[in-house]
């Protein structure tokens, strides 16, 4: 029954199952139950996935920044924060790329262009570039602690740039529609609001599921790195012992 150790556990199976169910619910609500929009027609259905994906991308980078800071803080320093920062950035890059893809698909029929130099679009693209750089920095090999410190500082340098990018680009231009949800009186109600909220729950669950699995993979990989040397050493010693026994009976 015991195969090779996996990254799944009872908790992640529940998590993965809930993610699938909520995603299926979002699809059903978003594609069939909700009515088309007065202005945007069927295109409004993007609202059930695009904002949740974009928000989770930003949350992912927030987690990376926080974990980087916790790694650098001497009292909380530990390998887990380094691992968490890395895997959250990886998943965040996927979400950020999906944000640009879904946004382009939505923008083409509504605005008539795949891409426009609007504040939010530009910020998202720069955010993606910043964290691609961060991942490239992480991938450079090195001694574990120095690599982690380097990555953590790199992550923080990128993170403190985000508000500056946000302001500069906002002053520059704004075309994107404002937030639909995060305002005192949401512009969306009834079943549409429910579909959108369900979308947020679904993508939050997917993010968590991905991060947990990636974290466990990374954890195993780094433990293997630590232990494989010891293991190889022990094996060579055992071989030598056998030889010694053969030579001197």
């Amino acid at each position: 029954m015991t195969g090779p150790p996996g990254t799944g556990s009872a908790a992640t199976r529940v998590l993965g199952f809930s993610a699938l169910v909520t995603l299926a619910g979002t699809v059903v609500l978003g594609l069939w139950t909700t009515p088309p929009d007065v202005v945007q027609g069927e295109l409004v259905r993007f609202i059930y996935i695009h904002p949740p994906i974009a928000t989770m991308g930003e949350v992912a980078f927030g987690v990376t920044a926080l974990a980087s800071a916790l790694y650098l803080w001497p009292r909380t320093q530990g390998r887990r924060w380094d691992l968490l920062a890395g895997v959250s950035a990886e998943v965040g890059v996927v979400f950020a790329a999906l944000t640009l893809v879904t946004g382009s698909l939505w923008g083409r029929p509504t605005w008539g262009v795949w891409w426009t130099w609007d504040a939010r679009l530009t910020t998202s693209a720069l955010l993606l570039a910043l964290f691609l750089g961060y991942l490239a920095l992480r991938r450079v090999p090195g001694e574990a602690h120095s690599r982690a410190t380097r990555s953590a500082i790199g992550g923080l340098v990128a993170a403190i740039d985000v508000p500056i990018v946000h302001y500069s680009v906002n002053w520059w231009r704004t075309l994107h529609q404002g937030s639909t949800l995060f305002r005192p009186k949401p512009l969306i109600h009834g079943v549409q609001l429910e579909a959108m909220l369900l979308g947020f729950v679904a993508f939050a669950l997917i993010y968590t599921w991905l991060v947990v699995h990636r974290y466990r993979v990374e954890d195993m990989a780094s433990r293997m790195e630590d232990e494989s040397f010891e293991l190889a050493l022990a094996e060579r010693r055992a071989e030598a012992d056998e030889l010694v026994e053969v030579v001197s009976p």
Partner: protein
Amino acid sequence: MWRDALLVAGKDLRIERRSRVTTNQVAPFAVVVLVLFAFALDPDRGVLTRAAAGLFWVSVLFCAVLAVQRSFSVEAADGARDGLRLSGLDPAGVFLGKAGAVAAQLVVLEALLAAGVVLLYGTDLKGGVVLFATCAAATVGLAAAGTVYGVLSAGLRVRETLLPLLLLPVAAPVLLSATRAWEAALGTGGGVGGAGPWLRLLVVFAVVYVAFGVVAFGALLEEA
């Protein structure tokens, strides 16, 4: 800290004066970039003059990448980095010194590029105070952010390709703000409201990254 900064900056500038890499390689490169922009955009003076502010700052950004790379390749040879680490100099001072030397070189390059923009693109440099203030704030910001990333990627084998990927997105707000401020001063900005907010943003960027460098440079020099 300030005395250490002056020592390190003096050392870096002395190396530059003797090796002449900035004057013989980076400065011609900057001029070549300006000429290439003219090829790319059709040397119709109207287009070039309107885009002069942006082209100037893109060139400055490229030069900044080169200057930062140079600043840390100097430390890579002969274990100079270990020497710096063992010298007992205050890491914050080392950071300010290295960033200061990069900034000094950038100022020279900016003067050259400004002359190039006037001569090659036919730009009329109006609004001197705003232009100078923009240069000062943007140069400090670029040098500080560049020095942080420079030391971060200094010891790595992939530093030549990694540094631009790290630095250019972070410096994007500098490019944006400095260009808008220059456009406002030169009157080519298509009705953008004033240089004030952009200058403030440049100052914020500079302050944030200088402060970050002063705090984090010790850890970077030790660990990275």
